[in-house]
């Protein structure tokens, strides 16, 4: 059976919405019957991306975060978009343990974790316009099974 689904959600860049975003993505992929590890990895990816938008994109000021969720058979695509200040040097931001905010006890691992927990990871950013993070992840579920 061919399975395809799409959803998007827009929410305020508030830290209490990190848990909300994790729950939304968990609910969205539920029909695909992911393993606990896969679910945990998807939730972590979303958590890291939304946290980055709040802390770095908007620097804890007002803003909106948009999360687009899609799947086509066993492939899940998540896109997290903010319209904040953007990243000056994306390559530097991707370095392990690099953080622009060491005083806030940021571990500098967010982007690396997203990359490791996904099969494909893309980030694009424009100063003053915002940041788009896109990940694709393939689930091990057998999609020939009827839902």
């Amino acid at each position, binding site marked *: 059976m061919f399975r395809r689904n799409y959803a998007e959600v827009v929410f305020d860049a508030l*830290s*209490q919405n*990190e*848990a909300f975003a*994790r729950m939304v993505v968990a609910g969205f992929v539920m029909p695909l019957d992911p393993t*606990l*590890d896969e679910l*945990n*990895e998807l*939730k*972590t990816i979303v*958590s*890291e991306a939304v*946290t980055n938008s*709040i*802390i770095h994109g908007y620097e804890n000021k007002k803003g909106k975060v948009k999360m687009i969720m899609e799947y086509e058979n066993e492939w899940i695509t998540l896109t997290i978009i903010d319209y904040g200040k953007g990243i000056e040097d994306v390559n530097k931001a991707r370095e392990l343990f690099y953080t622009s905010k060491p005083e*806030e*006890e*940021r*571990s*500098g*691992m*967010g982007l*690396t*974790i997203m990359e*490791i927990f996904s099969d494909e990871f893309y980030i694009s950013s424009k100063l003053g316009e915002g940041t788009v993070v896109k990940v694709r992840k393939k689930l091990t579920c057998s999609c020939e099974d009827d839902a």
Partner: protein
Amino acid sequence: MSLSAYLYIRADTLFVRLTGELDHHTSKSLRDRLNSLMMEYDIKNIVFNLKNLTFMDSSGIGVILGRYHYVKQQKGTLIVCEINSQIEKIIQLSGLYKILVITKDEDQALSYLGVA
């Protein structure tokens, strides 16, 4: 699901039992609580019990690393115990296994610290 922390002090060691989800949002108040207790009671060692922690991201790693730097200044030890399967991978990725003392449970942590 949010985070609750059960805290108790034995000698100069602070025990932190976490239940729920440790992310950027929930780490803020936890960090404040830990910092004020550590100052007030002259804490040297910290033992994190993660048995009932169902989710942790890099913000949680940041909290643990931040406390690690504090106890290191006090010439103390930071121990993490009861690591469950849901948070094992992120702890592994973060390299915490290499710099922290990891024990099976609080009893093992106690005997490691020699305060049993």
